[in-house]
């Protein structure tokens, strides 16, 4: 009986000690998360962008607002390495928007326009593959398809196992046509 009491006593002591250590660790992690959240919400202005992918995404969003699309593209490409599928889809979508806006700013005769629309379409499609309920991505993809349609009468109803990607597969950087 004594042994059982001894065991129970030390078990309780161990639980208290482990709980206190775990509280410390979780509290520290929460403090770090709150710091990143403060950066994301813009409460804290800092030159140093936290490594967290959501912070990178947030900085990319601000870069677009400050008319720095190249920096935003670079950050969004980094965000694509995340395991968070929703964030990855959002990064694809925002990247598609950067390409689309750049293309819309060009004249219809500019040859780079088609290439940029192609990149935008690819990004929107990747976003939709990850999350098909992104209605904004559907909308913008359809708009991009209206600007540069992909219909080819010969391809309708005759796929027969011979698929091919029509869109340009380059990701994360601009392709300037000669």
């Amino acid at each position, binding site marked *: 009986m004594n042994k059982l009491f001894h065991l129970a006593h030390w078990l309780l002591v161990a639980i208290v000690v482990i709980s206190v250590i775990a509280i410390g660790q979780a509290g520290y992690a929460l403090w770090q998360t709150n710091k990143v959240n403060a950066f994301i919400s813009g409460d804290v202005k800092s030159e140093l962008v936290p490594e967290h992918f959501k912070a990178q995404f947030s900085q990319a969003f601000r870069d677009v607002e400050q008319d720095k699309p190249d920096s935003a593209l670079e950050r969004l490409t980094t965000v694509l390495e995340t395991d968070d599928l929703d964030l990855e889809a959002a990064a694809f979508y925002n990247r598609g928007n950067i390409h689309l806006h750049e293309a819309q700013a060009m004249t219809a005769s500019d040859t780079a326009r088609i290439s940029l629309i192609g990149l935008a379409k690819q990004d929107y499609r990747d976003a939709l593959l990850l999350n098909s309920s992104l209605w904004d991505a559907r909308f913008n993809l359809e708009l991009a398809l209206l600007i540069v349609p992909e219909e080819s009468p010969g391809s309708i109803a005759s796929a027969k196992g011979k*698929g091919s990607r029509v869109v340009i597969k380059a990701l994360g950087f601009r392709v300037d046509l000669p």
Partner: protein
Amino acid sequence: MINLRYSILKYVMFIIVTFYAGMSIAADDPINVSVDRTWGLLLGDEVNVKIDLTTLEQGIDQSSLPLEDKRYGTWLYLKTIDRTMSDLVFHYQIINVPQKNTMIEIPIFDVKLSNEQWITLPSTTITIGPSLAVAEGIENITAKPDMKPTLISTDDSVKRIQFLVFVAIVSGLILVLWHFGWKAKNRQPFAQAVHDLSRLKFHTVTSDQAARILHTAFNHTAGTVVAYGELDTLLKQRPWLLPLQADITLFYTQSEQHFFARNVQQGPDIDSVRKLAKACRVKEMLA
């Protein structure tokens, strides 16, 4: 004899006709194909095409199935194929739409059976269409804005911390109650002694007070006043104090010399009294 030949020939003919009729029925058994939605499909929608394989006598060679994660034709992207013994389900996504509602054909694939024979999986049609009205031109259509950043959820961390604090408080409370008891009147004698001695840490205390507290604990444990000569009785009544016999005897010796001897000597020092009280409490707790 002629009748016999005629009869045999008739039976042979009957068997041949039955055999070929059976073969042709088997060959004409159609593979059933169904789609979960056939119309009203928009850009980004997912379409699941189910091909029923129950009419096939042979299984399908999995390696002959089309590649997944690949665009097929102008409109569809094949995401995955679910394979079971009875059916194949092709999960497509619509990645391109025409400018008006159009009936399109699902891609046709040739697949190999386990007997090396190739068959063509049947196709079906679906109607896809645009969701944007372009009658007034695309110049009036504004692209949707960027997605705004979202905060990292802290709900799980907060819940975890709350749970850990709860566990720590409950465990700590149990330990405190174990050591000191719920109420003063319910405390065991040495628990009370340890409690009183620890309270005296913050006040000026004499060795006399400390010794009296410990004596009180021994008296309550025995249920009577314990004098130096009655220690053996106490230890017989409370055998869990036996491991501390030497220390208890020393305490009582020093105490007697201090309180009752003609030449008053130094009583037990406060630290040793506290130490003995704690040791007794440990034994009392586990008794």
